[in-house]
């Protein structure tokens, strides 16, 4: 009883806008994970490194006097390079996908340290005109906060639009065909190796750009900030699919709705995350919490089908 009295609902309500903004930013990363995990059928762990690379590049450039918004495309390009390395390790050197991505991820740790010069680099909203910041959510007038969220949402909608367009083009179709059935893709003249590299580059570009936004949002880059990022990305993808997958598939622009579902999945993840923290779960346990969430959401569809099959509802 004493425990429940000690919980302050207002504290949660005050914290949630920050969680929502954080979830929207991580939604970009989740879209990148969606591209590899779902469209390409490639479990790409590069992202744990490339998100930090994007962050490191952005921080150092901003501190060097580059306009914060200009660092976004540069972080995108840096992420693409990371994806290129994983892709080449996998396709040109024949290293299995997961291992190739782990190798890139590990090497990026050193690369990120070199970029930042030390393990931690701050970038203060007081000194630089950052694109996003927690300050824009907690401080300022109500009007300016609404404007901030509207701007962020608009940015995401544009991003979803671009991806929707791209994956409808001949080039994007080639990626989807390769991920779905690489034998079919090759029989139709698609260079599946090239396509894989391309998809990994686009995905990690998104992740790098997310890193650039996230580092500005939280005000500092840390060499360990990407640890477990893949799990958060997967959590967003899976939460989005489990909650809105069926609804999204029925829409005319199904692919755009699915991407929106993934972004909302990231927002929900961070709201639940905040909620669990608010319940006074020690923050040391949060990575465990994230892993359990992903394991649960991955297991549910599988167990459901197994159960139905046992009852003979689903044909084998």
């Amino acid at each position: 009883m004493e425990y429940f009295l000690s919980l302050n609902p207002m504290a949660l309500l005050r914290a949630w806008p920050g969680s929502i903004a954080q979830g929207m930013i991580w939604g970009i990363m989740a879209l990148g994970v969606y591209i590899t995990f779902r469209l390409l059928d490639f479990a790409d762990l590069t992202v744990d490194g490339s998100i930090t690379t994007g962050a490191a590049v952005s921080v150092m450039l901003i501190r060097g006097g580059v306009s914060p918004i200009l660092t976004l495309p540069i972080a995108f390009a840096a992420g693409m390079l990371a994806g290129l390395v994983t892709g080449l390790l996998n396709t040109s050197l024949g290293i299995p996908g997961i291992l190739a991505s782990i190798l890139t991820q590990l090497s990026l740790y050193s690369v990120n340290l070199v970029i930042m010069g030390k393990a931690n680099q701050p970038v203060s909203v007081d000194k630089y005109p950052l694109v996003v910041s927690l300050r824009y959510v907690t401080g300022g007038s109500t009007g300016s906060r609404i404007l901030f969220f509207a701007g962020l949402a608009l940015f995401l909608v544009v991003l979803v639009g671009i991806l929707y367009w791209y994956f409808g083009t001949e080039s994007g179709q080639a990626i989807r065909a390769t991920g779905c059935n690489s034998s079919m893709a090759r029989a139709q003249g698609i260079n599946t190796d090239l396509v894989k590299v391309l998809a990994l580059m686009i995905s990690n570009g998104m992740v790098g750009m997310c890193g650039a936004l996230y580092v500005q949002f939280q005000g500092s880059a840390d060499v360990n900030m990407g640890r477990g990022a893949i799990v958060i990305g997967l959590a967003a993808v899976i939460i989005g699919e489990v909650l809105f997958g069926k609804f999204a598939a029925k829409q005319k622009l199904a692919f755009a709705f699915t991407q929106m579902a993934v972004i909302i999945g990231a927002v929900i993840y961070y709201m639940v995350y905040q909620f669990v923290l608010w319940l006074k779960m020690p923050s040391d346990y949060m990575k465990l919490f994230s892993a359990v969430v992903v394991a649960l959401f991955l297991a549910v569809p599988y167990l459901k089908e197994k159960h139905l099959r046992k009852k003979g509802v689903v044909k084998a």
Partner: protein
Amino acid sequence: MSKTGYALEISNVHKVFNRGTINEKAALNGVDLNLNPGDFVTIIGGNGAGKSTTLNAIAGVWPTDEGRIIIDGTDITRLAEHKRAPYLGRVFQDPMTGTAATMDIEENLAIAYRRGQRRTLKWGISKPERELFREKLCVLGLGLEDRMTSKVGLLSGGQRQAITLLMASLKQPKLLLLDEHTAALDPKTAAKVLEISDQIISENHLTAMMVTHNMKDAIAHGNRLIMMHEGRVIYDVSGEEKKNLHVKDLLARFEEVSGGEFANDRMILA
């Protein structure tokens, strides 16, 4: 057209799988075969005779050890699988292999329609293409023209093979490879898919190779029949002689070349 005028020339092709291991298997032992333009060859033989392996060698699924493969005068022996695709239409034994299940029927067709072209940033399917696909699907007589935006994964095995056949022929191939493409279907569906195959081959004047386990089908379809054994072509018959073949002739032929060994395969082949 090549100097020799052949649509396909295979000379002395060898392939050993798992070389140097206890699973070493000499799958192709010097395959020689020339096809004239418009030939429709059926290929029969026991298990492990090298029928599907020959088709895979032509398609470039893996590199061959020795020999040359020339399609319409172009030496494709060293080309990667996707680089040979412009010359080839392929239909596989497993209906799942030829199509992308999570993509629409029209998207699968659009991808096939661009076989051999660079994949650009142009939209993946155009309005006139949709009309073309609708007409082609109509001809199949399976009602698929009204389901063009359905996911291929929702279709039956026979429907998927019909789509794959269409995909193989949308862009005129130099050679159509049918690899036991009716083996996974029920008899009625298999007959329908064979009928569609005949129709597509004759309408487009295609040169085609069809691997089958069914001797009746091998005799009834095409203008030429070859039998393979231990990675070689051991029997090649065409024209009137082929038309007059009977299953029992083929069985006798099998036993003749293989000694008693083929008696065991009788069950599979009959």
